[in-house]
């Protein structure tokens, strides 16, 4: 498929060794692969970074008599340049922002991806079609398929974007694409203070500068991992925090 867009996919990982390979492969293949992929590892302890180094063929290096995997590595997979890096433990929002700043010149569309998910072959091409068709669209989200641990696959039908509905609850997930031009209007990337749900807070801000377009087709796949009660409570609190921030911003 011929287009003039430059698409960069950003993945921030933290203990996703089992799923990260599939995630990266999904954006380097398909109808319209990404032009650039950046994977930032948030100090994983399960060998996520080792998996990434294996995938790209990164060899051990010796720095100051210490031998280990390189902290940054530029490789290629299926002809798509991929940059991986690891950093000290912080929030996923912080890791995503660092990845965003690593390679932004010439990029016209940024795609964000949950490392437990993978894109359908036509997700990037469908998003580009929407961006071309509707100049006011700032972000493209889509439906998805959820893959449960018991082998069940569930088709998820999401609602289209409505500013009030998005403020009432989080409709989407981290797998969306945005135009690069919106970042100067947003004034900042992801909220680095938020431990989780920084993607919700980001989408709320995006919705204030442009339209969020919902494609009603399952264009990505999520792996559903059972979350404990503490995590559920934390999600509720962080979503509430994101709403409060938005309400304050809008009222001021």
């Amino acid at each position: 498929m011929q287009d003039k867009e430059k698409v960069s996919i950003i993945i921030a990982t933290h203990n996703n060794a089992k799923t990260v390979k599939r995630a990266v492969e999904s954006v380097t293949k398909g109808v319209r692969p990404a032009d650039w992929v950046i994977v930032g590892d948030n100090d994983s302890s399960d060998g996520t970074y080792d998996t990434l180094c294996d995938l790209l063929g990164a060899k051990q290096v010796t720095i100051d008599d210490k031998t280990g995997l390189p902290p940054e590595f530029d490789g290629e997979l299926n002809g798509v340049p991929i940059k991986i890096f690891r950093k000290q433990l912080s929030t996923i929002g912080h890791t995503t922002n660092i990845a965003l700043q690593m390679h932004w010149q010439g990029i016209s569309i940024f795609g964000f991806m949950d490392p437990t998910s993978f894109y359908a072959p036509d997700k990037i091409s469908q998003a580009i079609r929407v961006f071309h068709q509707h100049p006011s669209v700032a972000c493209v989200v889509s439906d998805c398929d959820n893959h449960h641990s018991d082998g069940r696959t569930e088709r998820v039908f999401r609602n289209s974007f409505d500013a009030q509905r998005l403020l009432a609850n989080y409709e989407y997930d981290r797998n969306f694409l945005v135009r690069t031009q919106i970042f100067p209007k947003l004034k900042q990337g992801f909220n680095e203070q938020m431990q989780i749900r920084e993607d919700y807070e980001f989408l709320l801000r995006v919705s204030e500068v442009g339209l969020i377009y919902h494609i009603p087709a399952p264009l990505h796949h999520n792996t559903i991992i059972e979350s404990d009660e503490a995590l559920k409570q934390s999600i509720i609190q962080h979503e509430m925090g994101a709403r409060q921030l938005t309400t304050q911003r809008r009222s001021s």
Partner: protein
Amino acid sequence: MAKKKKNVKHTEAVCRKVDAAAEMSKLGLKLEDDLAIIGFVFNHLAISHLTYLGLNSINQVCRTYAGLDFCIFTQHLMASCIPPLCPVFSVSDLSRWHYYPLITTSIGTTIEALASNAPVIYHYVFDLEFIDKPHFESSDLKLAFCDPRVRVIVRHESHKDVVETEFGIKVCGIIPDCNVEELAKLVLTEMKNGN
């Protein structure tokens, strides 16, 4: 005998008439037909995927077709995300709506439209609102999809399958992105055919 001089303005007028007739035929209308009016019922006109695309498309059709008018009804009167080029009324004015078709855009607006005298209500299912939404009473849901006056249009193939399976009805069209020209074509053709 001198040759009759060709009236340039008349020729231009004939050309314009031919163009206008060709344009109207795209919607299944003829120049001599009465003015067609289509009502749209939205929940609100503030920023959303549906209202943005819908209003843009309505404005586009208003600029293109002279023989087709629109009226917008909204449940919540608030500032519109795009200034519409057609009149906007509150849903309470639906009681005065006769003869012409109505296109509703949600379950709530369809229920509201059923109280009007509109002969046919086209429920344009933009979102599958009934999934995981226990707040909708099952009788309301059934009415919004299965009432004899309601015809259902969806925006995606997968939505068609779900609606047809869930309610045991036949969806009468798939029109993406609230394309008002396509919606008008479908609605006016159905009306002309007396459905």
